[in-house]
Structure formats: C-alpha cells, structure tokens
C-alpha cells in the first residue's frame, strides 16, 4: 500500500491518531492505522465530553484558550451531529470566585472567546438546577461531545478517501530500527494471534498516554506522564448547558450534561501505568460535594456510575508536584531533529477538542519532512455522519 507520497503508519486509534490519519488521507497519503483495541478504547472514549471553547484555560494560557476556541468552532461546523451545542455557563459561587470574575472575562475576550456576563436571574432561568446562591454567571460557547461518535466521523472521513486502512485489535510489539531509521514495526493481530511486520516510509506515534512506551520501543526517550482523573455520573439530565465553576481551573469544577445523564469531573493524579486506572479513594464523595456547590440536589439523583481515564501529559516527569500547573498543550516532535531517528513523528498531549488541529500540525510536519507542500482542507469539509463509518462493513474492511 503505497503511492507517490508514500505510506504512513499511524500508531494509536484515539482522537489524535484518527484525526491525523484523516488529514494525511485527505492530502493524498496512504495510511495504515494500528490500534491495539477498539478505536477510542484508550483515553479518548473516556473523557468528560466537554467541547472546550477555551474559557477554562484563558487565565492560565491564552494560546491554549485561543486554540480551543478556534478548534471548537471548526468542530461545530464539520461535525454538528456529534455535538450538543447548548453553550456553557461559568458561575461564581462565593466571594473568592467573584474576585476572579473580571480577570476571567478579560482573559476570555483577549483569547477571542466571546464571554458574556448575564444577570443571575437569567442564568437561573436557563438552568433550573443551578444554585440560587450563585453570584454571577458568564455565558461561553462550550458544548458536549459524543467522544466515540465524533472520532468515528473522522474515521468515516478517512475511509471515504479510500486512502485509509484501519487495523483494530492489532498491537505494536516492537519497532525495528537500523541506522537511525525505522524499517518496520512488528505487530500482533489479536483477532487471529498472528504476528507480522509492517513497513512504511514514515511512522507517527499517536499513542496518547502510551506514547512514551511506543517511543521507548524505538529507543527514544519521550516524556509523557499518564495523568488520570475520575468522573462521576448521575441519572437524569440536570441542565442543557455545560456548567463550570468560575475560578482557577481545578478539580471537580465542570458539570457536563449528556443525553439523559449529568457528569461531574474531574480529579487528577499521576500514574505509571495507563492500562488500568482505578478510581482514587475519596474521589466520589469529593465530586458529589463539588457538584452540590453548583447544582444542589445533584447527590439526590440516582447514581449511574463513575470511571477514570489517563490524560497524556507531555513533558512531565513522574515526580512533578503540582500536576494542575502542567500545560494541556500538545506537541508534535520530529524525532529526526530531537533523537536522530529520521522517519518518526510523535503527536502527544492536547485535548479531545483539539484533535483536528493536532492532525493538521502532524501532517504539516510530515509534508515538511518530505519536502512537499499540500494545503490542509480538514477545517472546511463537513465530516460524514458516524453511521457512515459502517457503510463499508467492519472498520472499512
């Protein structure tokens, strides 16, 4: 499977890998995507479901905020069926929150986020579950994502180009290098137990919190810290809008409604192993209590479930102390420059909301490496419905 531009292997079938595959395919590359489980069975399927307009990050880093705003606008345009777009509310609950309000709005506006303060009675009218004690409310263009269906739409878009081959249940077990070059990867196909090697002109590591492990197989040190968090869901939809606490981004301060459920998240710690992440003791009572500050009555809803997933934090060592201070930004790394492996690129970090942008940056890097100029078109083409992913049968095969 190769053409004039060459054959590229993408490792990892989360949002990042799939959006990268999609962009590469749109620009004419032949791509094989390798995912060890079902698509999005890593972190992507398990995130909170917030379409981040960037308001949450505006105080910390305007660039990240701006990027989220830009990408969330694009996603609303290209994948409208995978987003409940009801906007978001940031609510001030106490005096400390209030002291933060002006800087928050200013930071949003400076990041091109159209944050708009509304009178408290209007907020209470929008969302009946809100605490009547809230002191201020700001509307921002947040929304709810269906993580699986958004990403499957990207996969459907890739299949439509006829340049993509998707291999789920296929695990990378070795990366075979010689002379500062990757010749092939060895994989095991878990559907039949067979091992094989796959060669390609270029390899992209999009393995999320496992990206460090994949890089290691090529002898490359890549600092990616798996950083899990817990989310708690109750039955019953308590709001239409995403509701966040108007304060410095922290734990337990985002409530995301979705279908007939309401989700509060999250927490954050560092782990060594992204394979099995279990809920931390104490997280659930903490999340209930945090939700109550914004939605009194949250604890009376029927418990649905709780789960955890690991963020891929780039550039972090295991002993980092204040995890929250770490950047949510993403990085595309050309290992030719950094580590003298001439045909591997890693794309890690970021957020589910920035998947398309990450795909664009990774593909730009590939084009630059091989010396071609092909413009990115993924921001302008409406993706097929997730249901079209199934048009050609099992994962396009």
């Amino acid at each position, binding site marked *: 499977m190769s053409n004039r531009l060459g054959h590229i292997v993408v490792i990892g079938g989360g949002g990042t890998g799939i959006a990268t595959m999609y962009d590469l395919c749109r620009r004419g590359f032949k791509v094989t995507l390798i995912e060890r489980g079902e698509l999005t069975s890593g972190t992507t399927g398990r995130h909170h479901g917030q379409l981040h307009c960037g308001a949450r990050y505006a105080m910390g880093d305007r660039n990240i905020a701006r990027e989220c705003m830009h990408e969330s606008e694009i996603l609303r345009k290209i994948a409208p*069926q995978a987003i409940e777009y009801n*906007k978001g509310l940031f609510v001030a609950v106490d005096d400390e929150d209030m002291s933060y309000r002006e800087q928050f709005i200013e930071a949003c506006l400076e990041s091109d986020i159209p944050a708009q303060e509304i009178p408290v009675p209007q907020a209470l009218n929008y969302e009946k579950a809100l605490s009547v004690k809230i002191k201020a409310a700001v509307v921002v263009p947040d929304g709810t994502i269906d*993580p*699986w269906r958004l990403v499957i739409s990207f996969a459907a878009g890739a299949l439509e180009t006829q340049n993509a081959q998707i291999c789920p249940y296929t695990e990378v077990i070795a990366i075979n290098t010689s002379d500062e070059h990757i010749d092939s990867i060895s994989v095991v196909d878990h559907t039949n137990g067979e091992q094989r090697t796959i060669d390609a002109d270029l390899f992209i590591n999009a393995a999320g919190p496992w990206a460090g492990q994949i890089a290691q197989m090529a002898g490359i040190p890549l600092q990616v810290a798996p950083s899990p968090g817990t989310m708690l869901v109750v039955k019953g939809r308590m709001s239409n809008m995403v509701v966040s606490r108007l304060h410095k981004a922290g734990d337990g301060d985002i409530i995301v409604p*979705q279908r007939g459920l309401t989700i509060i998240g999250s927490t954050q710690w560092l782990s060594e192993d992204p394979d099995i992440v279990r809920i931390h003791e104490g997280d659930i009572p903490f999340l209930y209590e945090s939700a109550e500050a914004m939605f009194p009555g949250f604890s009376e809803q029927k418990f649905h479930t709780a789960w955890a997933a690991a963020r891929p934090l780039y550039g972090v060592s295991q002993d980092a102390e204040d995890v929250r201070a770490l950047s949510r930004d993403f990085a595309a790394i050309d290992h030719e420059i950094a580590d003298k492996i001439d045909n591997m690129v890693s794309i890690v970090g970021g957020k589910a909301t920035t998947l398309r942008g990450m795909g664009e940056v990774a593909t730009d890097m590939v084009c630059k490496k091989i010396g071609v100029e092909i413009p990115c078109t993924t921001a302008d083409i409406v993706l097929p419905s997730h249901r079209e992913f199934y048009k050609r*049968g099992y994962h396009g095969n």
Partner: protein
Amino acid sequence: MGTDEHMYSISILREEEYMEFVLNLSDELTILDALDEIRYTMDSSLQYRHSCHHGSCGTCACIIEGTQRLACMTRLSEFPDRKISVRPLDSFRIISDLVVDISSMVQKMPVNSYLRDSELNTEVLPPDGIASWVRFENCIECGSCISACPVSERFLGPSPLAAIHTEILKRKDPDEIRELRALAYGETGVSGCDKHFICSRVCPVKVSPGKHITELRREQ
C-alpha cells in the same frame, strides 16, 4: 475504592469454547473492569469492545449470564454466586472473542440524524446563536435489541425501525418522509415484528424500540 474483594470465576466464550478465568476482584467493579483486568494481567489476547465506560457509546454490549447487557454498566455485585458467563451478542458476525461487527445494524439506520430537541427547559429561549436546546438521541446503537430479537429473517430489526420512526417524526420534507415510510412499511418493515417485545426489555437506555414499532403500525 475500599470495598470487599472476592474470587470470581468469569467464563468467556472464545470461538467455540468457554474459557474460565478465576481472579480476585473488588465487588463494586463492572464486567468491563473484569475484562480489562483479565486482558492486562492474564491474557493480552482477550478482545472486547469498549470506549466510554459509562453507558454512552454502546460498544460494550454482550451477553452476560444469558442477557444482553452493557459490560460497563453491569456490576459484579449483581452475581452473588460469583460465577459469571460472558459471550458475544447473537445475530452479528463475530470478529473475535466478544467483538462483533455491528455494521449490519447501523447500515439500516438513517444517517445525519443523531440530534434532537432537548426535553428540558423547552419554554425558555436559549442564548443567542442557538436555535433550540439540543441533545443526542437515546439509542446508543449497542445492538442488544437486535441480538435479543427472535425474528432474524428479512426484518430490519428493532433499533433501525426505532431510528426510522424517530426520523419520520423529526422530518418536515414530505419526500423524505415518504422514503422513510416506504422502509418502515416495506417487506422488511414493521410487519415482520412478532411482538415479543424482548427488545424493549433489554435496551439499556430505554429507547423502547417495541413501542416505536407499535406506534409505526398505528401510524400506517
């Protein structure tokens, strides 16, 4: 979390035979957690579908102790004798272990129709820039109803008919409605239903496909 741990016997149908895994698990974990534990600590070749871990994506449906369930929403504590059998959904092509190919179901569903109006707060106008409060459809395309339905031949099946019905109610264009009705009342449409209604019983998100079929019949 600090609750009780016990030895569980999880028997998983792999190709033709059940394979038993005995392991120590905390009671409040789910079947999906147990599958993860087996895959990561005992047998890395075990394959099953999963994504959201909270009952929203629909990928993890399988047959647990004889009933179609979401693995991520089924707790070990529901099985006091601690012996649990898990097998793939019926009526779909098996890819491997618990992994089935659900494309035969989704191909029968209308495309571009996954949003609908929210039932919450409808009397209040949403903020500028939003036409109406919206939400995703209930059906998470898990395939449980198809697997449980005793009618297998020449029948669209419960969830595609439910999706077609929802779509008829949403659409305004008479031509589109006519096309959808042709599907619903065609050879493989509602007339195939034998009214067992097991579909509605197994649906994990209360789509009530059986009710949609009944309503379609009434609206014929």
